[in-house]
């Protein structure tokens, strides 16, 4: 077994192991952290695939930005329940497993039955990446920047509790969220409203 192969297996197992934790871990903080592990390991895989710039982007943008955001989301919304997700009923898990297995089976069967490109070429430099971005794909790039702008504007409007200039804002403290309903099977571990 060559070194590259060993590396692949290690990274693959790390990615899949962490990924499994992401979809099954009951503590949501753990979920997000395991997601970080998955993404970081993917970055390692990128390095092995000679895509160093992408690896850097992956770590900075994803692990640094997105995950922080998600962690915020977890903190904001599940502090009452101690960050713990309610477990899915067994039949739902079973159905999900069947679906996932079917996806895996179909995709891998297609992969294995298709002649894949063999020859490797030298990895593009970061300059080439940038040049491609701003020539061939410049229109898509501009559209993407608009997309990000719209996402930010929209997200702020949606997530903001009260609107600027809304007369209702001046009328005192914002309405507190309703207490979580104790649904069947819900486990409440966290401290009761500590505000």
């Amino acid at each position: 077994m060559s070194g590259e192969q060993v590396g692949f297996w290690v990274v693959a197992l790390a990615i899949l192991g962490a990924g499994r934790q992401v979809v099954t871990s009951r503590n949501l903080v753990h979920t997000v952290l395991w997601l970080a592990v998955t993404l970081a390991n993917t970055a390692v895989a990128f390095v092995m695939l000679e895509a160093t710039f992408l690896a850097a982007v992956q770590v900075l943008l994803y692990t640094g930005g997105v995950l922080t955001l998600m962690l915020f989301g977890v903190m904001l919304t599940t502090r009452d329940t101690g960050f713990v997700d309610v477990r899915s009923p067994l039949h739902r898990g079973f159905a999900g497993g069947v679906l996932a297995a079917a996806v895996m089976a179909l995709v891998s069967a297609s992969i294995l039955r298709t002649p894949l490109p063999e020859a490797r070429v030298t990895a593009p430099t970061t300059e080439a990446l940038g040049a491609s971005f701003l020539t061939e794909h410049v229109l898509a790039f501009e559209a993407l920047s608009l997309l990000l702008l719209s996402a930010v504007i929209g997200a702020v409007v949606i997530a903001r509790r009260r609107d600027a200039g809304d007369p209702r804002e001046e009328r005192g403290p914002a309405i507190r969220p309703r207490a979580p309903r104790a649904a069947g099977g819900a486990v409440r571990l966290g401290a009761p409203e500590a505000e």
Partner: protein
Amino acid sequence: MPTLSDLGPLALDLGLLGALLLVFAVDLVLPHGRKRVLGLLTAALLTALFAASFTTSTAGSAFGGAYVGSEWALLFKRIALAAGALATLGALDHVDRHFPTRQGEFFLLLLFSLLGMTLLPGARDLLLLVVCFELMGIPLAMLASFAKADDTTGTHRHAAEAGLKLYLVSAVSTAITLFGLSYVYGLTGSTRIATIAAAPVTPLLGLGMMFTVAGMAFKIGAVPFHMWVPDTYQGAPVPFVAFLSVAPKATGLAAIGLLLSVAFREQRGPLLGVMLFFVVASVVAGSLLALPQRDVRRLLAYSGIAQIGYMLMGFAAGTVRGTAMLLFYVAGYAATNLGAFLVLEAVTPGRPGPTLEDLRGLSRRSPWLALALLVFLLSLAGIPFVVGFWAKLSVFLAAYQAGLGWLVLFGALMAIVSLWYYLQVAKAAYLDDPPPEERAPPPAVGAPLALAIWICLALVVGMGAYPRPFLESAATAAQSLAGH
């Protein structure tokens, strides 16, 4: 290197971007309480752009072939701009009443989405295609939830749910599309549509192609990707639903048309089969599920699903004529459905949208609204003298010419079933007595909304009486796509 001349085909889109920035800037300087101006401004700008689309030449290829301006793209730009302008007019009062301080953002998001819609049909690069698709789609999820759940009037009780469902289905669909495209890229080495068309057929490419289309099919609400549609239509602000029910569908069809007729032209055998499946499944499920509905928004949602089935007959035919007929259908459907939802907004402003019970006795309370609704329903049902008849006839014709006689027969039979639920609505508006406690004065319809309904009505009747120019431009557009 891109040069300024590359911008020629994008003149209208640049205009739209300019409009967007203008609305943004004006929003910053307008004091609270005057925000209504923004909607008027948006409507005016969109109308101007729509008018400009008849004088501006947008033909040509740009950015190394990533973008091609053609009759095809132009037709979709016009549909999007017109739908945007009408929906803006229809939404003015609603927005002013329910979220007075956020009007700027509402129309901005609408403009962002419109920009994605006008750009997409010209895209000849899969990356651009998918980015445009998202630029159109992401603002829609936010607009569906725009009202927020704490709206005091209760009109928007389900705002969060409406947006979340659309978002979740959309996010997973995007992942599926990207997953499929990753294989398409991997096996062809390019994202340019022209290159892809020449690639040999392999299982993985077939898989990638199907995933790409499946991920986009959710936007048009074809069965079995339709399940978010009724829920979102019911929970989102009605004028926005008017927009959501036509413009993204048109653009989704444009995307599928590009994939079917250009990108995967040589490998499309299974795609045609899937289109056939969509037709049958959508027409059956849409028609049957609409039957028991009492909420008119849900009813129209399912009817829209069935309508998509009829439209896809054009693609299933697999001919240029089929595509042309589909385009005509789309244009007619856009005017009709937009009008129908705007009538719903006019009937029950400030309350959760109408059920059949709410419509009772409408013909006596407001004869003009009832008549408009009736015309839109007849058009959806495909009765002559309104555009829906020509639309159905033309896709049937295309399908029959392509040898799909059984499909035409089937479509005709299901059209009879669809009559049942359209007549349910008409019956409520015309035949049923209003409940005694509701001998209320006719609903007060604001001037912009009334204007939008009138324009839709004129289009539906006009296209029904003289469909010739519309048919011709649809045929030109379809030919221009086949040419590339």
